[in-house]
């Protein structure tokens, strides 16, 4: 049997942390783009689009991410669509993230007082101009804090990508725990690393929130 020193454990977990970060970034960027697109469709198109997007949100918020990942990876393959683990993870995490982000952002847009739309409209601005120059600047100020806060959920969510073969932080922890027979130590380190990654992000989100409330 091979001996794992504490340093071996921490070093390997830190290496695995790269994948956690990479997956989080993919999810966040993909989810942000898709979420932004859906939000614009929702605002610009009629009640049909609103209903469809409502279902979309319901679907991806109403099922465990674990199963979304599983179906994206194995399910699509069974349907004859070849997807790599990266594609599947990017796909599932993007869909999942966008479903939450579009809800968060919708709330922020709705929090902009109706009078702002009306004032912009009565100044003869077009819909796009109203959105771009009046509504979105205000909504995005409201949105920053909850969006950053949601990043924490995404980071934690990537832990589930291990079911489709990613050796990210949680999976690496499991493997090392098994080879080293020090599960408490290893999972302690895993929890700490997640905390070290997430807590600054949470703190930052709270700071932003407070700054917005003060103004």
């Amino acid at each position: 049997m091979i001996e794992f020193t504490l340093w071996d454990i921490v070093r390997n977990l830190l290496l695995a942390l790269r994948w956690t970060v990479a997956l989080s970034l993919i999810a966040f960027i993909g989810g942000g783009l898709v979420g932004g697109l859906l939000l614009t469709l929702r605002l610009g198109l009629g009640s049909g689009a609103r209903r469809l997007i409502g279902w979309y949100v319901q679907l991806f918020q109403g099922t465990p991410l674990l199963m979304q990942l599983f179906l994206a990876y194995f399910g699509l393959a069974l349907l004859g669509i070849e997807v790599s683990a990266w594609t599947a993870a990017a796909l599932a995490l993007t869909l999942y993230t966008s479903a939450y982000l579009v809800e968060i952002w919708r709330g922020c847009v709705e929090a902009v007082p109706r009078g702002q739309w009306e004032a912009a409209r009565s100044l003869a601005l077009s819909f796009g101009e109203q959105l771009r120059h009046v509504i979105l600047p205000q909504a995005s100020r409201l949105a920053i804090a909850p969006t950053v806060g949601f990043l924490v959920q995404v980071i934690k969510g990537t832990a589930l990508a291990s079911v489709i073969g990613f050796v990210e932080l949680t999976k690496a922890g499991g493997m090392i725990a098994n080879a080293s027979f020090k599960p408490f130590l290893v999972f302690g380190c895993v929890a700490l690393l997640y905390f070290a990654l997430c807590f600054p992000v949470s703190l930052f989100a709270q700071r932003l929130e407070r700054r917005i409330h003060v103004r």
Partner: protein
Amino acid sequence: MSAEALAVPIVRITALRKSYGTNEVLKGIDLDVMRGEVVAIIGKSGSGKSTLLRCVNGLEQFQEGSLTVNGKPLLYESAMAMRDLRQQVGMIFQGFNLFPHLSVGRNVMLAPTLVKKRSPNEAAEQATKLLRRVGLAEKFNAMPDQLSGGQQQRVAIARALAMEPAVLLCDEITSALDPELVGEVLRVVEALAEEGMTLMMVTHEMNFARKVADRVIFMHQGRVHEIGPPAELFGAPKTAELKQFLSSLHD
């Protein structure tokens, strides 16, 4: 401007009806507003005053009747036509509705640069001029939340004027202000009226209406209940409703 142009009403409202669901809020309104005229609209809460104003610049869709501004009828289907209309008709709200993320100057410049495609320099010059006119020349770079309510409302007036509208709609523009700030806003509106701006204003300030308006309209339950020069309406109200309304104000 020729005498004929003056004789043509700038806003012509004919048999206008508007419902929210089954609740009919405007029950057939007929009203012509002449160029340069100042019309004050008074009436109880819920009588449809705001709704009428909002129909004039297309913020609300009405179901029956017609409405023309400068001879052009309202076309809800055409976004272009609506934008043209709104360049003719400015509106000022009770809650000011300044854009909180833009400085005072940029609030005034926004619509001219976007809609009229003014160059930033030109727009800034115009904004400075308008802010001076409402007595706020030195606030160009201030943010809205650094201003008092009265100052914010004056900026809103400047912003509406920047589009050079033919008609200005004012919906209870002093109701959200502390009493000692009301005067500064009304003085600006009075000056506008004297310079010949066409004004349709909903107001609770009867003294002001008496002083400035050419005609006063008393609305009651979605109808124009009484209409006439202020001296007549306030001095000798004909209907019981108007009498009661006026007496409720001087308690």
